[in-house]
């Protein structure tokens, strides 16, 4: 059983949390996510041109790059995290260019060495899978694909072919952190996806409050929260660990309670 499949096999839906690597005190913030009860951690790889992100994560990318974050630093953060937290799955999330600039095999091998469990690449759709997919699969790293409100039933098999770990449902057609999807549309979408796959379904984009997280947790296998945490890092700078831990704990509590209702 992989760390990811173990995380989604718990009796409660998984809380998936995102922060941008190199923004604030990443080591302390990663520990705070675990302490708050995150089941899966997405570590964002900063990129100069984050086309799919809203203002919160765009600014986190800029802060990180301005602080001098290099790809090697991100793998060092990941490797150190793996030593401190042997069981918490860690997923790298980012854009194609930083992931493929030295070749897909290089990236997959670094992920493997650092103990990274999965990769989400925003701008490599299934049509461009050869860029990264085969290398990750050879290295035993899960390639986590995204499904969106525009992914219809005819396209879904294309998205699922080669996907593993979990399926990330992007609940709004838009960029990160801004709009909120209507709960009924999420319910319908998750039911539709579950008819096509046994992969766990994690739902994200625009999730901010414990109530929203709980509502999603009633239907999905996981809830992804990103921009709201990144905003706490922006607000509290080097001292974000406490607020991040408390916020994540409030989400976790709501998610765990949701399934008991």
């Amino acid at each position, binding site marked *: 059983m992989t760390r990811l499949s173990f995380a989604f096999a718990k009796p409660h839906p998984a809380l998936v949390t995102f922060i941008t690597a190199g923004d604030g005190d990443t080591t302390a913030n990663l520990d705070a996510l675990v302490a708050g009860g995150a089941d899966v951690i997405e570590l964002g790889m900063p*990129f*100069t*041109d*984050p*086309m*799919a992100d*809203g203002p919160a994560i*765009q600014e986190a990318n*800029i802060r990180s*790059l301005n602080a001098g974050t*290099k*790809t090697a630093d991100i793998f060092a953060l990941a490797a150190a995290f793996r030593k401190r937290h042997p069981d918490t799955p860690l997923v790298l999330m980012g*854009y*194609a*260019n*930083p*992931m*493929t*600039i030295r070749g897909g095999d290089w990236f997959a091998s670094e992920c493997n060495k650092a103990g990274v469990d999965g990769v989400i690449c*925003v*701008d*490599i*759709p299934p*049509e*461009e899978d050869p*860029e990264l997919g085969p290398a990750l699969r050879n290295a035993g790293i899960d390639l986590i*694909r*995204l*499904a*969106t*409100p*525009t*992914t*219809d039933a005819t*396209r879904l098999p294309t*998205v699922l072919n080669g996907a593993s770990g979990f399926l990330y449902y*992007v609940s709004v*057609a*838009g*960029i990160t952190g*801004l*709009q909120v999807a209507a709960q009924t549309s999420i319910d319908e979408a998750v039911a539709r996806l579950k008819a096509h796959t046994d992969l766990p379904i994690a739902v994200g984009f625009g999730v901010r409050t414990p109530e929203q997280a709980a509502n999603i947790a009633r239907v999905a296998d996981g809830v992804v929260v990103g921009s709201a945490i990144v905003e706490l890092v922006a607000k509290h700078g080097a001292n974000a660990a406490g607020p991040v831990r408390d916020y994540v704990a409030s989400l976790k509590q709501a998610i765990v309670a949701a399934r008991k209702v």
Partner: protein
Amino acid sequence: MTIAEPIPNSLRNQPDERGHFGQFGGRYVAETLMPLVLDLEREYRAAQQDPAFAAQFDDLLEHYVGRPSPLYYAERLTEEVRKNAPAGKGAQIWFKRDELNHTGAHKINNCIGQILLAIRMGKTRIIAETGAGQHGVATATVCARFGLPCFIYMGAKDIERQQPNVFRMRLLGAEVIPVTSGAGTLKDAMNEGLRDWVANVHDTFYIIGTAAGPHPYPELVRDFQSVIGKEARAQMLSRINRLPNLLVAAIGGGSNAIGLFHPFLDDKDVAMLGIEAAGHGLNAEHAASLAGGRPGVLHGNKTYLLQDEDGQIAEAHSISAGLDYPGIGPEHSWLKEIGRVRYDSVTDKEALAAFQLLCRTEGIIPALEPAHAIAAVEREAKKMDRDQIILANLCGRGDKDIFTVAEALGTSI
């Protein structure tokens, strides 16, 4: 626009069915956009088979844009260059006058084609990015012509240096949205355009201004711009019954260049030269992706990019806002790799000198973008025999640039 059957061993059959030009091109977009990009491709294939689409495109180009644009022998510029050339040297310089198009640049050719596609697809809202503002003006123009709401993303720095075009877009009814992220230039405007598109997929058509972006954009922009090369080729044959020895065009994303080059790609005796913007020089800040970059993925396609060793994209610099982009259309990357087209660069300083030279010798104020091509023409003509012919694309007029040029020359107006 005519539908061409594939020619065996032709260089004009790219891209492949996945949108790749060799290793370049492709569809590197977020999943939300992927179904749209596939839809656009289906609709474009249908339009290519539809004689009514071609007829409407041709009709608008003739009666609205003012095509065909003239082919012009620049006699005094040729003489001027010969004065400083070795004996017997100094090729004849000809221009394809796309600066005489409605809106003052080649950009309108592509906008006509794309808005017809948007209407075919039932889209009701148009967005675009712009650097120099020429593509923004052309997009705002076709939106006014067809009565569609228009939103133009433009870098804050570009808004500052291209005020006349900003005002033009507003007069035409477009909303110009300043982009302050990054360096506030074309790359950042394109990011913001993509963010808008992903959030408004149901009703919005993104009119991309250059032969770049996810497949099928590089192909369809090239096809719409190929009117330049098709006309030029026919005009050359009918005027002097021969083809040029060398084609020259400036390259930012590369739409005017690919539009001129593509119809000539299978003419083995026609050499081609694409000119990137060398800004302050290739060892300083510049915008020459082929000269100073390497392959990577940005804005939906794989192509040569200015970037660091981690794949972080560098800021480009050029005095010409239209060339100020750290990437290049994927077909140019391919044409460079197979060696069919030669690429070189011209600095801000050289472009400024060529700008003034054309004003004085021919009574034509060029845009700063083709001023780069003209600088290269001067350089190349001196090496070529007098009976040889250079054809350069004069892809835009310089009215928009007079403030930038005045400032660079230390004059206030």
